[in-house]
């Protein structure tokens, strides 16, 4: 077995746990949705585009965001639902830019289909805005090389994987995910770092994402 590169800086796994805060704000139609999307805190945009990833992480490899789900399932606007679901979240490096894209998508649709402004949910079907309060904690797991890293990756919580892949990139605006960042800068394996960064994590379940990254690293250190 080839000797593995020892990291210049060890990787400490963090975990991210979240609490859901209610805002008391709710949308009962597309016009109201757009108005609220423009004013709610960034934590709301983050929550509604990422909730499915954790709550239904075993369920679907293509978790829809809450806006897409509500527009399609509750308002019955299939086409707009598809447009919102297909927003490529991985392309956005800030919550602000993601918010703008969601708003633009709905406004564009309302220009094309003004009758959609008259779609309302049945009573109780409003979209309730919530936001995510993240608590970030260091775990005791630290790796100094890729072997140690992959061994920890296999058993760490999905919350930890979630933090390093999703939250670090978008909410903390680090530009890339933490795994790729460490592998490139501390291990020096630019190719592996890039191939992990190139994954679209939004189309995996969390367990599939764990398996995929684990397999990529194991191929590298075999």
């Amino acid at each position, binding site marked *: 077995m080839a000797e593995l590169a020892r990291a210049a800086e060890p990787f400490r796994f963090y*975990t991210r*746990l*979240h*609490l*859901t*805060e*209610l*805002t*008391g704000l709710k949308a009962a139609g597309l016009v109201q949705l757009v108005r609220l999307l423009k004013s709610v*805190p*960034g*934590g709301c945009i983050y929550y509604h585009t990422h909730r499915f990833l954790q*709550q*239904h*992480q*075993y*369920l679907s490899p293509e978790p829809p965001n809450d806006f897409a789900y509500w527009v399609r399932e509750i308002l019955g606007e299939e086409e707009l639902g598809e447009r919102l679901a297909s927003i490529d979240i991985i392309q956005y490096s800030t919550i602000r830019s993601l918010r703008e894209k969601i708003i633009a998508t709905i406004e564009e649709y309302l220009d094309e289909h003004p009758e959609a402004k008259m779609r309302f949910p049945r009573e*109780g079907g*409003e979209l*309730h805005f*919530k*936001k*995510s*309060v*993240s*608590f*970030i*904690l260091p*775990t005791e797991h630290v790796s100094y090389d890729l072997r140690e890293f992959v061994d920890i990756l296999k*058993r*760490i*919580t999905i*919350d*930890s994987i979630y933090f390093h892949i999703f939250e670090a990139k978008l*909410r*903390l605006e680090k530009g890339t995910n933490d795994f790729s960042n460490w592998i490139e800068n501390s291990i020096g394996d630019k190719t592996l770092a890039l191939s992990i960064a190139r994954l679209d994590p939004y189309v995996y379940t969390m367990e599939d994402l764990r398996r995929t990254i684990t397999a990529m690293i194991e191929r590298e250190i075999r």
Partner: protein
Amino acid sequence: MAKIDDYIPIVGESVVEDLKLIAVHLRGKRILNVNSTAVGGGVAEILNRMVPLLRELGLDVRWDVIKGGKDFFEVTKKFHNALHGGRVDISEKDFEIFMETSRSNLEAMETSGDIIFIHDPQPIVLVRKRGDNKWIWRCHIDLSEPKKKVWRFLKEFIVQYDAAVFSAPAFSRTLPIRQFLIAPSIDPLSDKNRELPQEVIDGVLHKYGVPKDKPIITQISRFDRLKDPLGVIGTFRLVKKHIDCRLLLAGGTATDDPEGQKVFEEVMEAAHGDPDIHILVVSQNDLEINALQRASTVILQKSLKEGFGLTVSEALWKSKPVVASNVGGIPLQVKNRYSGLLCYSPEGAAFAVKQFLTSPDYARQIGENGREHVRNNFLITRHLRDYMLLFLSLYHKENIVYL
């Protein structure tokens, strides 16, 4: 009583590790829970399980119960029904009775601690004793359409808390305090939910004289109008027109629910001595409830209003196909056509029950999905985590908290 590490085989080692990590940040904080009953009902059941586990995690947690007479609990039951949107006649006298008992509790109860965690409206007035400590009001009730008179009365107290906690997003209102969404949970290691040998299940059926000759449709609930037991009997009769089956309606009563006996009598009358309808009073016997759920072919929860409806998660955890009303916290547990079937009427419920009875493979798959959904979202370990994060949030106003 289960220890925290006993949950590792169910939720994985890392989930329990996380709980221990968070708990470290709450060492030294004294937390007092207050509710209105030590036994019966979902709140007491959850506290009975959670308090020892929080203590094992190193938190200094106490639990106290307010005192109240029959008059007081009759009024709080009226409040409960009014908050659920029911038509209830509440007089000034009722408010006086409520305040009189509240004043006695204010005098009698010792509320020292760093965090005071008040459950439901009965002890809500205690917040008048607040000092420089933190106060949380935990509402377990469906507040989607509360009657204004009671809501306005309670709101005066709610706004004096630091935070309020609700079980479903639709229950939140516009309030000047922080509001959090925390679903309740079930304990997979409790007598109500742990695995049972077949002979125990058969023994309980035998005890209650329920033969295993036909599919069994079950609703486990207190005898309470909001659980719609008469609607359940209506549903059963619609199903039975086409498929021979039995109905089990089983439940007890809580000490803070004076209406239970009356509803029970109405249910007995509606059953008309039908030998296929089994109405069982199973008071505080969790093991028997567990056995009855496991013996069931389909489980119903046809509530008209529901704070959360933990019996749904209990059934899903046992991989049972569930038909439940689309009210309160139920749609959080049942994602329609994925982890169960949602309904709006006895006719809709009957149609869904027939689908499950005639398509056992579909029923099995839905039941399995339901179990995984509960494992991920509605077990006590998630609840412990949320409560600890809630306590921490009282000391952090920001959206991203580094611990």
